[in-house]
């Protein structure tokens, strides 16, 4: 049996269910009791103020506090409201979280889940709009998750909360506020890390799309069909670990690779996948790998310029046509 819920509900349900199942799970972050976006709304009513904790506006300190709790047997869900703010906590996240299991010879596990919102297009200008996933890719020991549907959001967030290693979940604001709906199964389910899904099968080119870009890629696919171009759209769902098998099996079939992301282009997720493809599947590439990403500029405050900044359906279509 399935039912239809939206992206925000999926995140809320995943947290509520895990909090019911496991008393060590608690929510921690700025304004999580009121929840200005709504993901943690209502949790304080069911679980009380002891398990839904408001924190000061001090990202580095609260990430460190959550890490301490995790080392002492708790399973914190830490909300860093905007991904832009997570940069303040990069010392804890990149220098410590992912490395402590190794540094302590496995004596400590760090079962912490960090949720943070990414994505532009909501007129929030440069400080509240960035997609900074690629900043985290360099840190060892972190699992990075970017769901694009309610099903994935719920299943992956539950996996993240149960994981004994630190996981960062990137939630796109257009999915949170846009009310994107989808089916989820009744009852408990999880989605393993490192398993991509093929959103649309095709034969002419492979488009790997992260998070919200899946919707742009699927719209591009629809439009390209009018020109008899049939692209395959792959949603990796987890950035780290990356499901290379699904991507490269598709590349073996299509011979053309396009990576679409909302991060900036320099050193982005597309750069990593392009390098992997060139290193391992060079003979299958019938055309240069294309990257669709944001330009190397601050996100403009002007709505018109912000729309130009964002990679979208049209930039994906142009990239596909360049290689066909």
């Amino acid at each position, binding site marked *: 049996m399935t039912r239809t819920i939206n992206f925000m509900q999926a995140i809320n349900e995943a947290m509520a269910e895990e909090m019911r199942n496991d008393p060590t799970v608690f929510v921690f972050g700025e304004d999580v009791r009121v929840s200005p976006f709504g993901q943690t709304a209502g949790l304080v009513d069911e679980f009380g103020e002891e398990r839904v904790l408001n924190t000061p506006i001090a990202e580095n300190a609260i990430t460190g506090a959550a890490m301490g709790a995790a080392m002492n047997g708790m399973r914190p869900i830490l909300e860093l409201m905007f991904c832009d703010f997570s940069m303040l906590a990069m010392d804890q996240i990149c220098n410590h979280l992912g490395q402590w299991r190794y540094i302590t010879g496995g004596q400590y596990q760090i079962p912490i889940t960090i949720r943070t919102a990414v994505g532009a297009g909501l007129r929030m200008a440069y400080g509240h709009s960035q997609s900074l996933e690629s900043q985290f890719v360099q840190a060892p020991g972190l699992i990075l998750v970017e769901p694009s549907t309610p099903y994935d959001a719920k299943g992956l967030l539950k996996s993240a909360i149960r994981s004994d290693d630190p996981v960062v979940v990137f939630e796109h604001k257009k999915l949170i506020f846009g009310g994107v709906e989808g089916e989820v199964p009744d009852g408990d389910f999880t989605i393993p890390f490192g398993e991509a899904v093929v959103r649309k099968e095709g034969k002419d080119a492979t488009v790997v799309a992260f998070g919200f870009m899946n919707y742009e890629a699927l719209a591009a696919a629809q439009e390209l069909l009018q020109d008899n171009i049939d692209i395959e759209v792959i949603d990796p769902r987890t950035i780290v670990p990356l499901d290379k098998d699904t991507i490269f099996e598709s590349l*073996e079939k299509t011979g053309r690779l396009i990576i679409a992301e909302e991060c900036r282009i320099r050193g982005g997720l597309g750069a990593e996948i392009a390098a992997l493809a060139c*290193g391992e599947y060079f003979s*299958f590439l019938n055309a240069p790998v294309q990257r669709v990403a944001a330009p190397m500029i601050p996100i403009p405050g002007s709505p018109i310029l912000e729309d130009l900044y964002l990679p979208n359906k049209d930039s994906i279509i142009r990239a596909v046509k360049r290689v066909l």
Partner: protein
Amino acid sequence: MISEIRIPKLGMTQANISVVELTRANGSAVRAGETVAVIETAKVSFELKSPTSGLIFYLKKVKDNVSIGTLLAVVTDSQAAFDDFYKSLASEKEEHACSQFEAPENEEKWGVQISFDDEAPVRSVASSLRQPLQVDIGDRKILKRTPFVGMRRTIAENLVASLQTGAQLTIVSEADMTELADFRKELRLDFPDTQITFVDLLVKILAFVLKEFPVLNSSVVGDEIICWDEYHIGVAVALDDGLVVPVVRNADKKSLVAVSREIKKLSRKARQKELKPETFEGGTFTLSSGGKVETEFMTPIINPPQNAILGIGKIGPKPAVYQGELAIRTRAYLCLTHDHRVIDGVPASQFLGRLKDVIEHRKQFSKILK
């Protein structure tokens, strides 16, 4: 509510599906996604999962032969629901004399799997397998009884058929793998994420050398010998209860790291019984490694419709004459079985010699292993 569990279509294989395990007791509770039965086709073993939660009732037994679409089991809310369902099924059966619950028509052909050659000799092979020597079990002590069906049966039939249809012989050469072993250690430093094995290295080397000897990468189809311009290398993977040979496609085009990752994925899926039948199809040459066991050399049996197979014996330190001196070197036997109908002794020996040449010299293999 009744949820049916039917035998799914598993790739190209249509016939000879048997039930090898029913994992739950009749009437017991199952959850959605739980494994409820294991079936085996000629090529793979496959786990069937419950589509929903409820009570499971099986309509087939272990060792039953089934075909695609056969109703294997149902999941219901209650015993009463199953009883009603069973009654309706029974009356339906009377009306239509439904063949679904009877032995498949092709049972007579049980064992005839091989289609690459004349059927006549194969049929006799199959029938000889069907009538083993009579053994009087009487009151003899038995440790274990295993149904001789499914994958085990397929392995048996394919191997016997292979020996009966070709003119197989094995030639052996010993190769010095010291340089390759050193190279492998360096790769471990350069690619810490991927543990490169000798099998990975040899698949790449084979794909390269086969290009120089097209007849080794061939099949007999009808009255033609077809040399393939694709290099799909089968890699034998030992399982707890058998052996499968998944295929690394286009091994010549993929990088070493990609080949390595693919072999690991195929092996993992084979052990988890998740391999799809397509994975076994289209191989043009097979590599069988005795690697982790103590076997020095072997006479591998060709995997039809291929015409050759390479077996690698134990890779380890051995005394050898190296640059005129007695030295301890890492060596292994390369055992090439070829079908003399298609490949004569000299080309086979030349192939083996060239393979040895590439394996022994870094200058040669380092160009391939990138």
